[in-house]
């Protein structure tokens, strides 16, 4: 019984560390290529020119590692849940569900961090809110 608990704990911690590493690498990948993905958006060239440097700045500001903190906070309750789960046939099914939840948490943590972390004292959320209002009005010919 005790060995089983230790094994499950080790498995949970190992999974958490792997998922954390995955989170950081995914965030870096997304940020690095989001600037390129911006170019595929159905907005004018001027709008794309304005948005692309924003994501370059997020990479420069090393936002990606900051995604780890909210991710870990979301992860802890699920770790406890996994750790307390008794033996049974449902465990593999629950593990898959757990991975899916982790990926959702990862995405939410990434979005939360990117939008609300301050870069040079200003939040991306505030900059995007202003720019997107102008983009939707089609009013970004010059800036």
């Amino acid at each position, binding site marked *: 019984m005790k060995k089983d608990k230790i094994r499950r704990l080790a498995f949970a911690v190992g999974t958490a560390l792997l998922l954390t590493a995955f989170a950081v690498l995914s965030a870096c990948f997304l940020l690095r290529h989001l600037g390129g993905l911006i170019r595929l958006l159905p907005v004018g060239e001027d709008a794309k*020119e304005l948005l692309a440097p924003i994501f370059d700045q997020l990479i420069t500001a090393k936002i990606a590692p900051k995604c780890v903190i909210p991710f870990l906070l979301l992860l802890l309750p699920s770790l406890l849940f996994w750790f307390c789960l008794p033996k049974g046939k449902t465990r593999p099914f629950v593990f898959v569900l757990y991975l899916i939840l982790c990926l959702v948490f990862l995405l939410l943590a990434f979005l939360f961090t990117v939008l609300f972390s301050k870069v040079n004292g200003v939040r991306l959320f505030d900059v995007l809110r202003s720019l997107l209002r102008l983009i939707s009005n089609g*009013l*970004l010919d010059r*800036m």
Partner: protein
Amino acid sequence: MKRLLIFFLLSALFLSSCAAADPPAKETDPPGSDPAASDTLPETSGTTKDTEKPTETDDPGTDETAPETGAETEPETEPATEPVKETEPAPETDPPIPDDEPTWTVGFGSREIAIPEKTDEPLYIAGYHQGWEIAGVSDLQRANAVWLDGGEGGILMIGIDCVGLSSDVVNEIRSRLSDLVKESGCVSVNVYATHTHAGIDTLGLWGPTGIDGKNKDFMENLKAAAAEAAKEAYENRAAGRLYCGSVDTGDLQKDSRNPKCFDPNLYQLRFQPKEEGNGVRLFFYAAHAESMRGDNKLVSRDYPGVLIDTVEEKTGDKGIFFPGAIGGLIMTEAQIPEPFSGDDAVKNRDLTGKRLAEYALSINNETVVAPSAAVSTVKFEVPLDNIVFQYYKFLGILGSEIKGGDPNGEYYMVSELSVVKIGKLAIGLLPCELTPELALGGSALKKSDPEPLNGIAAEAGFEKLLLVGLCNDEMGYVIPPSQFLLNPDAPYIDRIKDETGEDHYEETNSVGPEIANAIAEAFRKAIGA
């Protein structure tokens, strides 16, 4: 008989020509060196005031203000000298300084700002168009510094020939001078821009959209030149006398936006060293340094450089230029027809600078300024309404200090304002381009506008206020709240014309509508009103 008649005729002719000749010149007071004139400077509201004849006393150094100069009318007094012509050297007419007279300690330093020969980043020209790279150099930008000490500790004023400097660059220059400050007892280090629109981008706003237009190598050269110029100014300091004078520059300026309101005077603080040596002249003038206009791609100091060089050539005095209240938008009139082509930009710059130099050399109403200089500095914050400034700050291009961004989303730009107090003369060091009516007052201001700075200075007991814009930061234009108008669809991006057809361009380069009140409030605290 005939010979006798001819003799008398010739003698008569000779004698009559002698009688018609000018009488020998009277000994007059040397121009520009009238000690202890008791008249005070006028309120510079743009209204006309008569010029009063300076009075003579035997006591030098008791009065710190210059006599009145009319803004638009001819002075009633007879000018002491005619404007200096190009072929005439300036007369050396300063009276010697007695040993028992209290003296100023003033020093001057200057360095060219080198353009990096090998650099990875482009060099953009600042002021008009984004993404325009420089095409050559007419004259190199410089860092000029003056050390002013009236006995309460030295004040460093470092003027950079550039479009503007954010507070982060100013603070870096200050940190490079920290050893000098400790060693010298310097009480204040101030760094300002002459606002030349022919300099390399130092704010970062003239690169392609969203790309920092600053060149790292050039900025490093700028900071190094500023620090070296400051050190040289300290090392070169000498004891002497300081004079204050002014002259109306007539139709040299224009105001491109209604209401037409500006200070037409060129002010000069002139230092006469006690021992032999070159003097130093501080020029204060309210006009954008953009005489080369918008199509120019040559690096230049613009007209301030020509002013300084011309005065130095004529007198040997070193010069430093301070931009005044130039918002709204005060610039120099073109001296040749526009639009420019070929080398017209350089010609216009030279004509403008030389004309201003003539005015400077014609100043004939100087009074002695008693040695005394203290500085008060106030930090203040302004709501940052300008979304373009927010964007450039996010990208790390705009270097000014910002705080806030709490759940309500309000950001504030944090800056500083100082006042140098020299007897009854105050010099306001403003981190912005102030619309002149906010200093001069008058009918242009409404109830919603703050009290003009001249009025606040008068409340605090000062008889004259000089202003230095773009000092220790660059917050953009400061427009009276009653005139502030934004395009409702694209605020701070697209400009708008009001019902009278007036173009509200300046608002797009402003922190927001509340900056005028913030500046007035900070100024009131700093000056002690």
